[in-house]
């Protein structure tokens, strides 16, 4: 490259560059010209308009909070609704000294320290021209007292706002959940979801249960008014108005009557019960005992009630059906039996002769049957009926842990049911990999053995157990359990169903299902472990009892009820579905420290099924001590005293 061409290129480069720079210079001038004409438009042509808005009047944007959607049961019974109540509100930008104003108000209307605290917090979160409540739930006398003194208080107003109320109080509290004041965490979540502007003016948000899960549908869309306000702070006229869109109503699949029967059937016992329609996954009853009154939470719970609820040994705030985890005990056996049959093992007429214990080859450790001396000759169907441990010890070992767990996982064990509530626990279905990850220990054959009878690491929630029962009742087709059956547009009443969803489907040999079902039906017939539960029933009940140990029993030690603290008694479990040939209800019951599935948990399930299938209401509740006598007659068979 010689000097001349380099020079020419240099000049060419510079020339091109300058051309492009000049182009940009023109662009800059054009853009600035646009800005200039925009200024001209705003500041000359529209000056009068903006001048009026800004100087003589101030525009205030008033949010109009939408009505929160109602929650109704399947028959239209109201479980959550709203009512209007007076609030006293201050607009900080219109008040000279907010503290003085509050002090003056408190001379004739009670303002507590908590009210002041809340006001301070709310004020920090709002624009100064937005009104902030200093008192809520004013009664008529207080409202009248303020009205008389109103002339003294510029920038203080009485408003009527919507409040949430749960008319059935304790009924289904864990499922309904509650709303509470929006806190900083909620604000962060709302701002991340880009929902903050929709909550201007709202001061409550769903905190738990359905109120939380369906917050988006229940809340609705906030409307607003653009209002001109004169120097005295009075609204002169409304410039524009966008009405709010009320929140949708939730229609539950829950029958509140069934729910109440379920809750009352527990008496003084703690525990959980879930009833599901196996055909479509609709949850019919969702009981967590003891319960609480969600109305306490709506306007911020007082510290005494909170302490009482939170520190109670009965833990009433725990949502037991989805957050309580328990070993499934013998209720696990029908699923193990089905696993064995589907794997081609234990097909009748296969049977064992039960000596009352099981031993691993080459070991002297005895895995005891609950019945000393054993059950004699037992095939798979009878093993379910009499809850023979020895049979399932051997079956589990024969199948191996991986095959067993991979089959029963189709019944929802070890994973969330995806019910329409937040915070569900997933329980635990153990595998060797899980144990290695968790404990850095290898899996022992003995652990496979006890998994066969629902002991060991396996853990379930009552909801999972109900779901597993429903899947069994529905012959392997798993429907997603859901509490809300449809959502209703509050404006026009149009109902959108929350569709039934198939979440899993396992192909089962109908013959095998028949064997297991018959084994479970026999459980509630004379000779079964829950014969008294089935007594006098016009429909066939397929069921299984279970007990779950709260504390471990050492080898060669006998479980002695009288020696054990009441809180250490076994948990009683019971699963059932009915009518056995074409099930429309599947139930799982857990009674904490209830000892035997057949005598405490079973009668609860029976009451539920009687009402659901026959419309039969149980006699009015009697004190718990007597209830045990009237509702659960002394077991006719020795079997019932056990598993």
């Amino acid at each position, binding site marked *: 490259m010689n000097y001349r061409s380099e020079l020419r290129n240099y000049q060419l480069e510079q020339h091109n560059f300058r051309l492009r720079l000049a182009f940009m210079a023109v662009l800059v001038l054009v853009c600035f010209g646009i800005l200039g004409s925009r200024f001209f438009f705003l*500041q000359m042509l529209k000056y009068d308009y903006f001048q009026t808005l800004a100087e003589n009047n101030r525009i205030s944007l008033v949010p109009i909070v939408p009505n929160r959607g109602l929650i109704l049961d399947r028959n239209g019974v109201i479980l959550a609704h709203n009512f209007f109540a007076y609030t006293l509100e201050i607009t900080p930008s219109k008040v000279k000294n907010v503290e003085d104003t509050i002090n003056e108000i408190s001379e004739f209307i009670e303002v507590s320290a908590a009210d002041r605290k809340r006001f301070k917090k709310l004020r920090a979160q709002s624009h100064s021209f937005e009104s902030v409540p200093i008192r809520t739930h004013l009664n008529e006398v207080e409202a009248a007292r303020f009205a008389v003194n109103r002339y003294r208080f510029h920038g203080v107003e009485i408003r009527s706002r919507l409040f949430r109320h749960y008319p059935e109080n304790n009924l289904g509290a864990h499922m309904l959940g509650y709303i509470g004041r929006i806190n900083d965490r909620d604000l962060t979540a709302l701002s991340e979801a880009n929902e903050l502007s929709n909550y201007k003016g709202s001061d409550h948000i769903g905190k738990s249960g359905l109120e939380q899960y369906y917050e988006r549908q229940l809340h609705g869309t906030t409307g607003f008014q653009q209002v001109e306000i004169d120097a005295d702070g009075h609204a002169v006229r409304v410039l524009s108005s966008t009405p709010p869109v009320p929140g949708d109503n939730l229609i539950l699949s829950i029958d509140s009557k069934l729910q109440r029967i379920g809750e009352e059937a527990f008496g003084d016992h703690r525990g959980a019960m879930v009833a599901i329609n196996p055909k479509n996954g609709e949850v019919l009853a969702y009981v967590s005992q003891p319960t609480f009154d969600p109305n306490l939470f709506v306007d911020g719970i007082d510290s005494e009630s909170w302490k009482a609820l939170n520190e109670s040994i009965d833990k009433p705030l725990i949502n037991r059906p989805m957050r309580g985890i328990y070993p499934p005990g013998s209720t696990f056996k029908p699923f193990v039996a089905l696993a064995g049959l589907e794997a081609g093992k234990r097909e009748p007429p296969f049977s064992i002769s039960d000596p009352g214990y099981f031993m691993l080859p080459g070991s002297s450790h005895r895995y005891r049957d609950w019945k000393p001396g054993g059950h004699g000759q037992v095939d798979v169907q009878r093993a379910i009926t009499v809850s023979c441990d020895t049979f399932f010890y051997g079956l589990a070992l024969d199948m191996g842990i991986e095959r067993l767990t991979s089959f029963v996982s189709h019944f929802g064990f070890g994973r969330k049911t995806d019910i329409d509530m937040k915070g569900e626990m997933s329980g635990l279905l153990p595998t060797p990999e899980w144990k290695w990850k968790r404990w850095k220990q290898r899996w022992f054959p003995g652990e496979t053995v006890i998994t066969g009878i629902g002991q060991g690491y396996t853990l379930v929630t009552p909801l999972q157990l109900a779901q597993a029962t429903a899947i069994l009742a529905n012959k392997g087709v798993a429907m997603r359990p859901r509490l809300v059956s449809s959502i209703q547009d509050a404006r026009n009443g149009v109902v959108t169903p929350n569709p039934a969803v198939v979440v899993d489907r396992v192909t089962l040999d109908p013959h095998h299902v028949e064997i297991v079902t018959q084994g479970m039906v026999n459980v509630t017939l004379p000779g079964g472990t829950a014969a008294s539960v089935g007594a006098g029933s016009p429909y066939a009940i397929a069921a299984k009892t279970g007990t779950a140990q709260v504390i471990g029993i050492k080898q060669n030690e006998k479980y002695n009820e009288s020696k054990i603290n009441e809180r250490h008694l076994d948990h009683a479990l019971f699963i059932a579905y009915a009518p056995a040939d074409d099930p429309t209800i599947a139930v799982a019951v857990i009674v904490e420290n209830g000892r035997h599935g057949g005598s405490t948990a079973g009668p609860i399930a029976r009451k539920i099924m009687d009402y659901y299938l026959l419309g039969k209401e149980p006699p009015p509740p009697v004190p718990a001590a007597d209830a045990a006598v009237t509702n659960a007659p002394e077991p006719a068979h020795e079997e019932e005293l056990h598993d």
Partner: protein
Amino acid sequence: MINRFGSYVVRHIDSFLMGSLLFTMLVGLFVLYSASGQNVDRVLSQAANMGAALAIMWVAANIAPQHLERLALPLYILGMVLLVGVFFFGEISHGARRWLHIGVARIQPSELMKIAVPMLLAWYFSRRDNTLSLSNHAIGALLLAIPVAFIMKQPDLGTSLLIASSGFYVLFLAGLSWRLLIGLAVFAGVMAPIFWTMLHDYQRKRIEILFDPYQDPLGAGYHTIQATIALGSGGMAGKGWLHGTQSQLDFLPERTTDFIFAVFGEEFGLMGNLLLLLLFTLIIGRGMVIAAQAQNMFSRLLAGSITLTFFTYVFVNIGMVSGILPVVGVPLPLISYGGTSLVTLLLGFGILMSIHTHKKLVTS
């Protein structure tokens, strides 16, 4: 002696640019005093920011462009490493991940990229032979897109927009073909409606609010509505310094930072606005003259990009405050409160001065 020291200090300072910058910053301090509710502490703290930024500008002005050229690649790599660091270990504040803790200090790597990206691209294009192929531009676009994507992910829409435009200016000034530019514009025009139909309802809603604030007057649109009221009510001559009703009352949000122009416009009116635009035009004009007179490709591209990015700052900010552009977080340069962006800005002007005052004498 004092004389000689004085001349040493100003040796690499461009007096025209310096004068315009100082005057604009002075205006900024006055507006800030009013916008902050006559908060002297705020004004003093901003003055301190300005002092520090001017010192950095002086240092940059004294570094010859050929040294800057050598710094381009290492600086870019350092910036990218820090950006990746932010992506994985960054500190979240106000919902965005922008800051990185390094020992004791907290740094914002995206600010560094505002300078590093145009420097790298100017260096890249100045190293090519005089014929630039399409692939050169493709590589340049890639070098630009990577940091922009990281910053957009933080998310920091304003900064990523500024860096994207600074890089685009280099590509354009380096001779990106007109045919390609027009082709891209046509392609975007065709794709936009198709893209629109593919969006979810709520996404469309967000974009609509961006362009029509009145759809969401309580949320995203609130700023714009209040700002246009402030501007419009300023009228021809303004309400006078410290007398803006919208800005002195609590109506106007973020009035010391991104929306400070609304305060200025309300208090100084149309006349004030046009004068401020004139000031900005002088600064941009001087920058263009420096770019046009620069002696090599690197200096030329860098000076052009710095100047035009400054213009982008001004246009995007004033455009959003006056309601013709969507609200993105871009401060008004030299006026808005805040030290970080001021430092980066004056660093850029320092480089401009360096380019102008380090010219070798050549005969042509």
